[in-house]
């Protein structure tokens, strides 16, 4: 199938959610963006700068993420779209400058108190707003509601125009009662005419971020607060209630122009009724119930070059698994539990870029994070007129897939067909019991990736496979199925079901079929890439089910990495793998006298991708929640379009 046909398939698949928002005058984004002619485009929605706890300036981050080629010999990562997801709260550094630790020429750590009244990058900050400086002088901080709208948003728009790509001002919310959530509210950011603003994004941060302690917010001409009624119930059960109020606020004010995607969801351990900790399954159910068109999934850990990806032994699951949290990685676990209800609940991925650890921002090695696009890419459907709204529509639709280490690229097809009807990720195929459902997957494995390392993959060397780290080979793809047994109501005893590493929320979930080089078609392409195609059939029964997919460069039963079924083991086990190639870098830890696989070497060695589910429902059975929520989005498109 040609790229053009692939695009058509994807375009048709996106219709229920397409064109959801009002037309925006993003004239700087060409109508035919990127010249990719590919069905999907790649982006990132979670990343940080010196406005909070990152190390580089906002403009530098966007230059690296959206730029093409190299700048002064430094690689840029050419993402198609970018959402800036910095923390809420406050920050005392001026994010028009990078930190000294980033080792960028001409940049030293600069504080807001150093630059008040100066015009820098066409932005003049004359005062730190809010009730009281936090922390107090001499290094008083700017509340994030101010930096979102007065600093980050203007830079985002300037860079969007410079690169002619979609760039959005978002937020990594510090969630009351929990840890964090990726959010964006694009209302006002891309007006049909005139100058835009990020006021709604800013307001959401002020109202619902538990680290934003400001009681005042912006004031009107009479010095009266503009945003009143803020709650400070930020912890435990009351905090969770405030978090749900935040989702409800988004559903009411931005049902098609916002999202709420909890991130590194296992890292803070289980939920605590008295503190701010992690998430259990009932909290995601609460969010999805309160925000059916805005709270539609969770995101992977990020921090992919950091040892254990920032997950400690107290996280839910005690570690990451192939770079993903337990909620995603465990078959039959939390994600399958949500899908087993028929919910629109999807998996996303982002970099969570902050810094490169002991290295500088221009180095290729990292002991902490990767730049957006360098390692992690979230793919959403391409469109002939790709806009900020397209990013949100694509995410909401579930027609997306998440890839680490460029294991596969944006030329991807995952469909289910029966009786001449084809559906893709996030959609539901209606069939008759006994119908044959044809599952097709097509993907392209790039000839190489961004890894700086070309020595033999130390994980695969354990099993006699010698594969350069920067030339990964897709070993296999698992098709995972699970039954859909209906939505669990809040009154059900199983609604709030504790999570452990052995908890099965959906016992029917299983690997239905595995594709590898023995049962697939591989076609070398002229550019050195490899196209792989798989087709299989399933017979529909009387129970609705879903099909999702994951792929990896790891074989089953790689010691310390995968089990005999190919499931990822806890990544802490990889500390046991010796890196004894003479090219193994010197920043890897030495344990018992031998250098071990860790940091960026581990990240580039152990690659996975995850594709969101396709649902299959027998005709005559009630629509699944994913369908009724899609219908809700479609009706909102009509309602809001009529109102505009």
């Amino acid at each position: 199938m040609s790229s053009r046909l692939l695009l058509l398939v994807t375009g048709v698949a996106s219709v229920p959610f397409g064109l959801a928002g009002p037309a925006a005058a993003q004239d700087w984004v060409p109508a035919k963006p990127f010249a990719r002619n590919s069905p999907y485009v790649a982006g990132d929605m979670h990343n940080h700068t010196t406005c909070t706890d990152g190390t580089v300036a906002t403009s530098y981050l966007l230059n690296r993420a959206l730029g093409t080629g190299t700048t002064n010999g430094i690689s840029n990562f050419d993402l198609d779209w970018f959402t800036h997801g910095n923390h809420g709260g406050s920050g005392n550094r001026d994010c028009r400058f990078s930190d000294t630790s980033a080792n960028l020429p001409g940049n030293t750590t600069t504080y807001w108190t150093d630059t008040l009244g100066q015009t820098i990058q066409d932005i003049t900050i004359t005062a730190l707003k809010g009730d009281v400086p936090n922390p107090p002088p001499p290094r008083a901080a700017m509340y994030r509601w101010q930096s979102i709208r007065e600093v980050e948003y203007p830079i985002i728009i300037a860079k969007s125009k410079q690169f002619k790509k979609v760039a959005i001002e978002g937020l990594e919310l510090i969630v009351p009662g929990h840890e964090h959530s990726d959010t964006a509210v694009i209302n006002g950011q891309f007006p049909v005419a005139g100058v835009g603003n990020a006021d709604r994004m800013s307001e959401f941060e002020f109202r619902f971020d538990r680290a934003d302690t400001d009681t005042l917010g912006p004031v009107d001409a009479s010095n009266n607060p503009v945003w009143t009624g803020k709650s400070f119930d930020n912890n435990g059960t009351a905090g969770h209630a405030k978090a749900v109020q935040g989702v409800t606020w988004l559903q009411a004010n931005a049902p098609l122009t916002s999202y709420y995607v909890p991130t590194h969801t296992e890292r803070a351990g289980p939920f605590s009724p008295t503190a701010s900790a992690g998430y259990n399954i009932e909290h995601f159910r609460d969010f999805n119930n309160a925000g059916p068109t805005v709270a539609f999934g969770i995101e992977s850990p990020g921090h992919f070059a950091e040892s254990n990806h920032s997950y400690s032994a107290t996280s839910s699951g005690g570690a990451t698994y192939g770079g993903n949290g337990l909620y995603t990685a465990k078959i039959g676990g939390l994600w399958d539990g949500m899908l087993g209800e028929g919910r629109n609940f999807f998996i996303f991925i982002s970099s969570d870029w902050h810094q490169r650890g002991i290295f500088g921002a221009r180095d290729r090695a990292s002991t902490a994070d990767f730049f957006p696009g360098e390692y992690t890419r979230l793919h959403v459907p391409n469109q002939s007129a790709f806009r900020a709204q397209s990013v949100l529509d694509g995410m909401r639709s579930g027609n997306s897939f998440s890839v680490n280490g460029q294991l596969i690229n944006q030329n991807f097809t995952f469909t289910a067909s029966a009786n001449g009807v084809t559906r893709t990720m996030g959609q539901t195929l209606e069939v008759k019991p006994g119908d044959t459902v044809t599952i097709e997957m097509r993907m392209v494995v790039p000839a190489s990736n961004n890894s700086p390392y070309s020595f033999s993959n130390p994980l695969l060397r354990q099993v006699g496979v010698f594969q350069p780290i920067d030339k990964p080979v897709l070993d296999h793809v698992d098709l995972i199925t699970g039954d859909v047994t209906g939505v669990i109501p809040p009154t059900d005893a199983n609604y709030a079901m504790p999570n452990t590493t052995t908890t099965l929320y959906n016992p029917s979930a299983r690997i239905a079929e595995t594709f590898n080089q023995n049962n697939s078609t591989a076609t070398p392409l002229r550019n050195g890439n490899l196209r792989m195609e798989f087709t299989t059939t399933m017979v529909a029964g009387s129970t609705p089910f879903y099909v999702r997919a994951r792929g990896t460069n790891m074989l089953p039963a790689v010691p310390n990495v995968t089990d005999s079924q190919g499931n990822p083991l806890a990544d802490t086990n990889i500390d046991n793998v010796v890196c004894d190639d003479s090219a193994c870098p010197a920043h890897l830890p030495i344990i018992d006298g031998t250098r071990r696989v860790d940091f960026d070497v581990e990240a580039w060695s152990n690659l996975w991708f995850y594709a969101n589910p396709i649902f299959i429902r027998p005709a005559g059975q009630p629509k699944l929640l994913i369908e009724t929520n899609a219908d809700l989005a479609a009706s909102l498109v009509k309602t809001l379009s009529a109102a505009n």
Partner: protein
Amino acid sequence: MASVAAVRARAGAMPHGDLSRRFAENDLDAALAEMAAGDVDECHELVARAIRTIRVRPYRLRPGEVLDGYGPNSPD
């Protein structure tokens, strides 16, 4: 929880070229950034990791090894 300043002093007592010192000091810099951004838990975790790095010293250069950033202007 030990203060960042106290742990930094312990790191500073390590040899200047000690790779574990560099890891520990980087974690302490990040801890201060987290504190300034209001994330106390993350600050504590980074300080704890720096303490562990100072104690265990898992990062070190063998004779003749250099730290390679795999790009221009590597800090070393």
